[in-house]
């Protein structure tokens, strides 16, 4: 019987030295890694592809309908028509935002990811930046295309520069922030279906609930839900003045509100990700 003990204790403390040079990794490397991840799964192509399709088809369709009815919009520009495509498109962004992180939990990839990069904040930061820039860029390009077409099709007031900015950069920022909030919820819930359900609820429930608040006692709550629900915020984004009554946010203010909510969500995600077992 041979005892399988070749060397009791080798002398050097570091037995093996790799020929691969050790270069300090930083956030940039994490960004490259996350970009590879997001571009190499089909769900990204599907959700973003569907989003682009919805924005184009609905945006151009609504433009065509408005053009055939003619006039009636002489005081406003055609840009707020972009809203109709943005609302269904936001569901795609929510899905992609959630999947960006929850699919790592679903597949077990998160353990590999965090073994490779033990700084959890760095992982989440890189994910957030890559996701935000991707959604922002895609939405910006498509929103600009749709807006240009709608302005050309519909006989309405010539939009101002500020209106253009809100309908393109503002809309892209709104979508990217909404997606980021979904990503934060995905990181908190760690379950794809659960997190998507939560976000669809956030998107639609306040409006649906407000519809059924007939009691006069609930009048205040009903108005608040109407004004601050995500679809209403999206409508308000296109408008310089509060579109629902005299109060409520308008234009860039809606973006600030959403940014605040996203910051809170991401803050929770960072805190919990750092604290929890994987």
């Amino acid at each position: 019987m041979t005892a399988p003990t070749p060397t009791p204790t080798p002398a050097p403390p570091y037995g093996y030295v790799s020929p691969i040079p050790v270069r300090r990794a930083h956030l940039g490397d994490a960004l490259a890694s996350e970009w590879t991840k997001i571009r190499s799964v089909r769900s990204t192509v599907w959700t973003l592809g569907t989003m682009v399709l919805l924005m184009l088809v609905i945006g151009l369709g609504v433009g065509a309908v408005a053009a055939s009815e003619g006039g009636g919009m002489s005081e406003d520009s055609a840009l707020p028509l972009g809203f109709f495509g943005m609302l269904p498109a936001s569901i795609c962004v929510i899905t992609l935002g959630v999947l960006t992180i929850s699919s790592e939990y679903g597949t077990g990839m998160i353990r590999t990811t965090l073994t490779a990069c033990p700084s959890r904040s760095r992982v989440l930061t890189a994910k957030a930046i890559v996701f935000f820039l991707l959604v922002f860029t895609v939405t910006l390009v498509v929103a600009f295309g749709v807006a240009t077409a709608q302005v050309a099709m519909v006989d309405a007031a010539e939009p101002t520069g500020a209106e253009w900015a809100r309908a393109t950069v503002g809309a892209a920022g709104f979508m990217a922030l909404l997606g980021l909030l979904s990503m934060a919820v995905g990181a908190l819930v760690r379950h794809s279906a659960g997190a998507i359900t939560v976000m669809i609820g956030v998107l639609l429930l306040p409006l649906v609930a407000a519809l059924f608040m007939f009691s006069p006692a609930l009048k205040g709550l009903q108005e608040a839900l109407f004004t601050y629900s995500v679809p209403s915020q999206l409508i308000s984004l296109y408008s310089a003045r509060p579109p629902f009554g005299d109060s409520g946010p308008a234009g860039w203010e809606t973006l600030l509100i959403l940014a605040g909510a996203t910051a809170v969500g991401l803050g929770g995600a960072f805190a919990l990700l750092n604290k929890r077992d994987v």
Partner: protein
Amino acid sequence: MIELEGLTKRYGTKTAVDHLSFQVRPGMITGFLGPNGAGKSTTMRMMLDLDNPTSGTVRIDGRHYRELDEPLKYIGALLDAKAMHGGRSAYNNLLCLAQSNRIPERRVGEVLDLVGLTAVARKRSKGFSLGMGQRLGIASALLGDPEILMFDEPVNGLDPEGIHWIRNLMKSLAAEGRTIFVSSHLMSEMALTADHLIVIGQGKLLADTSMADFILQNSRSFVRLRSPQQERLRDVLHGAGFTVVEAGNGTLEIDGASTEKLGELAAAHQLTLHELSPQRASLEEAFMQMTAGAVEYHAHGTDVHGGEPAASGPAWGANSGWDPAPGPEAGQSGEGV
């Protein structure tokens, strides 16, 4: 070098890992053995800083895992084969890991070649068989060409060819001077690969010994005797100065005697023997006794040590735990490295 110091993990009232302290030394394969649920995977997850210990510390070459900026260059781990995104190709799964640690992209091709997955590099890993998934996991562990490698149950579910491949791979990696830490619930597997052995049961350290010592201690051989004239046989054996252990079912077990000697002794006294057979403990059984002892000790207090004064060594059962064949299996490693 990995050092664990008083590592403890509690989930509510249940203690999964209980004040575990040991070292994993370079240049050899350290086997991490324990039955299912002993806390092996929890320990490994804490070593990689995936789970936070309730108390205690783990140091990798003197540093905490979280202090490593590019950990894949120090430590590679195979936790479970499915820890990859199935919708992503093998190549891209490895590429995103390489990028996060600043490992040159050519290394991805190298490790895929090393584990034999080059042909399916662009296929989505969802369709991989268990063996291919395991190879992909090993490729990810080798990506940074690290000094320390950790494998959690690497041979689970593999075919004999795959098992053979992993064994040889671990041996060649250790021969290069790397630290190999591999967990298993199969003693026989460890006996073939490990140089050093760490055994845990219920999260507690049961043994920290070299494989050679473990085999020496636990592969005790003895002779089993069965006779219709048991009373007389026992007297004769006592008279000849043998220690006799009654093993139930009318069998006697005698340590430190040859079959020849016992056979001649029985013949000299004209005793009929129905069985005279050499026996050797299988390491697998020895391991089961060791870990079962830890479990029983909790459940029944001192009961386990009652009865026969057991042989030295951890919690021997009186009659079970013996393998009838002194054959070459049962982990008697003939494969000197």
